[in-house]
């Protein structure tokens, strides 16, 4: 049993957890804050991956990540445009964009289904070279260190942003539509900004992943929305709601914990084909957990009170 929790498993689970936490953060903005089910996540993630991979191959690893973010902003903008200006239902808008992105992604990868970046410089090789000879490098910890810094910056920026006038307006848009209309906020604008930010985070996540695993595949994003949703719910269930900073922390925690669960599942020799089922189960359990807990508490109370009353009646 002790073998399940090796340091290296924890290490790579954390690395992936931090990378994917950006998608979860994106979903936090679209799903929790704007109250929009944005289903373009899968395609947008692959988009970030594909764009970053292409630019990385051409020798610009940092630019690659900005390019991925730019592509994500565009994708988010189109999703928003469809629903705010063309009257397309928000779920449909996401599905349409997701479908269209498949072609865009293939094109971004030079019409091949996968790319490999084994020979390329990445932000990880740059970090390794920067740190130089040290135990951080030999233990491979520099990757985690870099990711923690990146994700922390992103999380702090998002948290600060949500406290600005525009950020508060975006939050109000998803919280009380009636109020927003009567308070000089243009919901079309706030939804657009929100989805652009969400898209850029999703694509950034994809871009970092491409450099992390030194490859990019057209199907990389499949199921991403479910995974991100699972992480989001796990984080929210365990950390709870409250101030934005706490909720953002919950997002990152949920993402890492999810990766850890998956890593353990792999370790327990769950076949690769079954991983999607495991994911689905985790999602279902995470979502149902608060409800089951509440129900169990009530049932318990009911039976103790009933028992007490019966006793009282007999006496």
């Amino acid at each position, binding site marked *: 049993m002790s073998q399940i929790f090796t340091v290296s498993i924890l290490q790579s689970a954390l690395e992936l957890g931090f990378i994917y936490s950006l998608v979860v953060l994106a979903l936090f903005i679209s799903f929790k804050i704007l109250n929009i089910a944005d289903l373009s996540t899968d395609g947008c993630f692959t988009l970030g991956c594909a764009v970053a991979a292409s630019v990385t191959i051409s020798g610009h690893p940092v630019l690659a990540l900005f390019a991925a973010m730019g592509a994500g902003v565009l994708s988010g903008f189109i999703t928003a445009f469809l629903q705010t200006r063309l009257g397309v239902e928000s779920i449909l808008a996401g599905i349409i964009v997701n479908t269209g992105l498949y072609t865009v992604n293939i094109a971004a990868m030079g019409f091949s289904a996968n790319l490999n970046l084994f020979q390329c410089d990445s932000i990880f090789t740059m970090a390794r070279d920067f740190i130089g000879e040290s135990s951080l490098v030999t233990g491979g910890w520099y990757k985690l260190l870099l990711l923690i810094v990146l994700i922390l910056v992103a999380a702090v920026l998002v948290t*600060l*942003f949500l*406290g*600005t*006038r*525009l950020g*508060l*307006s975006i*939050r*109000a848009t998803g*919280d*009380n539509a*009636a*109020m927003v*209309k*009567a*308070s*000089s*906020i*243009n919901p079309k604008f706030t939804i657009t900004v929100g989805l652009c930010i969400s898209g850029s985070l999703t694509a950034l996540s994809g871009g970092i992943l491409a450099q992390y695993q030194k490859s990019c595949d057209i199907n990389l994003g499949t199921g991403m929305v479910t995974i991100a949703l699972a992480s989001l719910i796990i984080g929210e269930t365990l950390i709870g709601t409250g*101030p934005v900073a706490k909720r953002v922390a919950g997002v990152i925690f949920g993402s890492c914990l999810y990766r850890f669960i998956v890593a353990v599942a792999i370790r327990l020799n769950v076949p690769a084909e079954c991983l999607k089922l495991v994911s689905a189960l985790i999602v279902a359990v995470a979502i149902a957990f608060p409800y089951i807990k509440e129900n169990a508490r009530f049932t318990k109370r009911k039976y103790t009170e009933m028992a007490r009353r019966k006793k009282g009646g007999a006496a």
Partner: protein
Amino acid sequence: MLELKNIYKTFNAGTVNEKRVLKGLSLSLADGDFATIVGSNGAGKSTMFNAVTGVFYVDSGEIILDGEDITFKKEYFRSKEIGHLFQDPMLGTAPHMTIEENMALAYLRASKGRHGYFSRVSKKDKAMFKEHLRMLDMGLEDRMKQPAGLLSGGQRQALTLIMATMVTPKLLLLDEHTAALDPATAEKVLGLTKNIVAERKITCLMVTHNMHQALTLGNRTLMMDAGNIVFDVSGEERSRLSVEDLLNKFKDNAGKNLDNDRILLSD
């Protein structure tokens, strides 16, 4: 301050549900006017407010606020200058945002020009929010970090009022904003409204179904029926009117009795 010229509005025009609601309505409010509005059910009081705030565009006529023609301006543009409180206390605040965040939003959006998209509220602003809340005497100043959704209806309505007036609006529209509250809370929110409006000389329109309030609050009383203002009284003449006189005036001008299911004849 506010000028409505010959406003027409028909809902669902050309269908079986066609409903002509505003029929050539005109109204002129002077700077600092505080007018109460009474009228029968469906007279078009709320519709008139919605026309002013821009929930829809009117079919014809002009709306002028402080010299600016806003007839074709978008709703979010108009609401920078117009505070609007509804009967339903749930409509005015974002339930999952804290009291402080709600106030920050109201403050940042209304104080035009000075605040860009990325501005945040300062410590000083927060202290100012607290001062405003203390005025309510509801203990809200100690609950700034709680979600607004935890407040009672009356507390939320009081908060909404503060939010709408913290930065003085050019016009304040109150649509039976105390009608959903219990009598004691309603009294409190009303007193607060009176103070704020008087203190800052806000131009204000208030729909009420309380005939006594209609005569005693503010400086002018308007009566509406079937999409028009049928009686408009202020000054000396108003101060001599009793509730009964007012009802008779309505009957004379509208040709029927004032018919409102929520009407209160005494206070």
